[in-house]
């Protein structure tokens, strides 16, 4: 017999932390995977000056002349080709533009105007050929080149990945975990004890917040060290949104996991919830690219205000006060989903 007291909340949190850190594969997916995403996407989309412009010159007497005129600029990567070959190379994206030269001189450009590289090639090639044909520039110009950190794709991407991690963590770390415990009849076993239900749910939430801190810190630190991504605004404001986001998505996770009794059901529900936000909320590209008609819908999804707020703080240095609409939307989602899941929660 002992009357020694143990804190149930402390024990519940401790149990979750132990379970989490004793599963290396889970730790990798939570902490390692977002870093790999940053590395892969940061390298793939690093902003760099355009190295070369692929130009096909159709064979012929005048073609040789054009070829010679263009070869003065090392940016042009030139191919002499017959008409069929030129079309094929253009169609498959190996070159950006085809020049057909005739006496005169007269030039026909073949290209796809919807491809930015082709449009650029059209301007540069025309410029070079016009000058070779004797055009003189009417005005003197000077180029000043600026490549600012904060305006690169990686800067845009990091807040999106932060928010995506918070969404996935809330749904997996709360929703899936609870369903797994329900399937194992562990929830039923717990309520067969005098355990207080709110302490159990608080334990899940608190452990989720604890897992999240290293996740966010690692991602921000890595982005800074590897790519020089800087937080323009207050770090405290970033943390406020990180916790608000974690709270909101924990609430959504709780709701998703409140009744499901099989892994299939909860996986399906989680995809149903996450997929629209992955696509629409602007993790990888601005959500403003979608038509104006769907913008109100996109803006009310919980991930959108979280991404927008994190970007505003990290990239533009906005204050918490300026971002009150995002705070309101996120809080509303969190409170409503929590209330509903407590109402519908199934322990067995």
């Amino acid at each position, binding site marked *: *017999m*002992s*009357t*020694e007291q*143990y*804190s*149930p909340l*402390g*024990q*519940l949190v*401790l*149990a979750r932390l*132990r*379970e989490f850190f*004793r*599963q290396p594969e889970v730790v990798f997916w939570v902490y390692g995977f977002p870093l790999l995403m940053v590395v892969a996407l940061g390298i793939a989309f690093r902003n760099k000056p355009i190295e070369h412009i692929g130009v096909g010159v159709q064979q012929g007497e005048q073609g040789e002349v054009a070829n010679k005129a263009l070869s003065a600029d090392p940016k042009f990567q030139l191919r002499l080709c017959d008409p069929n070959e030129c079309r094929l190379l253009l169609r498959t994206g190996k070159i950006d533009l085809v020049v057909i030269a005739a006496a005169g001189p007269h030039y026909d450009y073949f290209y796809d105007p919807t491809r930015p590289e082709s449009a650029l090639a059209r301007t540069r090639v025309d410029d070079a050929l016009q000058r070779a044909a004797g055009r003189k520039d009417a005005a003197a110009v000077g180029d000043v080149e600026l490549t600012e950190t904060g305006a690169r794709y990686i800067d845009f991407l990091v807040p999106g990945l932060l928010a995506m991690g918070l969404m996935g963590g809330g749904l997996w770390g709360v929703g899936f975990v609870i369903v797994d415990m329900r399937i*194992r*009849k*562990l929830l*039923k*076993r*717990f*309520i*067969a*004890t*005098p*355990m207080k239900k709110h302490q159990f749910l608080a334990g899940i939430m608190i452990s989720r917040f604890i897992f999240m801190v290293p996740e966010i810190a690692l991602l921000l630190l890595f982005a800074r060290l590897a790519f020089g991504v800087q937080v323009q605004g207050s770090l405290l404001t970033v943390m406020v949104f990180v916790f608000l986001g974690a709270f909101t998505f924990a609430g959504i996770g709780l709701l998703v996991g409140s009744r499901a009794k099989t892994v299939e059901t909860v996986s399906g529900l989680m995809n149903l919830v996450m997929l629209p936000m992955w696509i629409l909320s602007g993790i990888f590209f601005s959500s403003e690219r979608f038509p104006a008609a769907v913008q109100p819908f996109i803006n009310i999804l919980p991930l959108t205000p979280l991404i927008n707020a994190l970007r505003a703080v990290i990239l533009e240095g906005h204050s918490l006060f300026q971002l009150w609409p995002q705070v309101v939307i996120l809080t509303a989602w969190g409170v409503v989903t929590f209330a509903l899941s407590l109402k519908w929660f199934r322990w*067995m």
Partner: protein
Amino acid sequence: MPVAIRCSNLVKRYEGKTPVDAVRGLDLAVEEGECFGLLGPNGAGKTTTIEIIEGLLAPTSGDVEVLSMKWGHQDTEIRQRIGISLQETKLSEKLSVLETLTLFRSFYRQGLAPSEAMQRVSLEEKAAAWVGKLSGGQKQRLAVACALIGDPDLLFLDEPTTGLDPQARRQLWDIIRNFGKQGRTVMLTTHYMDEAEKLCDRVAIVDHGKVITIGSPRELIASLGGEHIIDFSLLNGNGTPALQPYDLSDLPGVQSVRLDDGQFSLAVAEVHVTLPALLKRLKDKSRDMASLTTRHASLEDVFVSLTGRHLRDGDAPS
């Protein structure tokens, strides 16, 4: 004797396309300090009954009283004083035995120290082992330790030894007996008649959601009339008419005769009186025995004589 559990006219209906009546008017009274068993085939309603008493399921109708308290009024108070082992709980595989017990201990106002609980189920050496590394018997002992950790007055065990090997079963029986020696109450369900006979002071045999008989294993067996059973089967008698149970019911000392799948079972008071008469009767009818055994009557025989089915037949409709 004060009563630890009382159920009256318990009914549980699972609604659905075809509603299932799992429990249909069940009455029970379990006295303090006894080990009480619910014995019956799979699907008889044992688990539904015990889970209603444990406060995990709500009955469709009927009353339950546990330690003189009622569910819905004093839930926390009851939970502090009972210990439960469910039929299938997968405890967290990545937690150690000690960590698991400490977690469960934290839910109770008072109870055993985790080390004391481990000692009761002989798992001290496994204190630091992860639950996922334990054998089936060790896992089941841990589940019982989790039920004991709050030092309960009343212990519920649902099928505590199902799927375990004989040695692991005996270890669990010892743990349950030791708990009972402290004057505490145990309620368990089982479909093993030997478990009920060895462990339980009283047994309720449950079939189709009702108690069909209740009493100590001895009383129930004695109610058969004969405490011994003679089992025998016959060789194929070429052309002779089949032997019928009524051909044997007039033998001296025979209380009942059963024919089941070619096997005759005679419940008799004294084997040495009946057996010579039986052999003589078979000789007169020119029949030869293929096999012959005599044994003590068991709860299985009680069940068969009451339902015409074996416990193992499970939930097959009859």
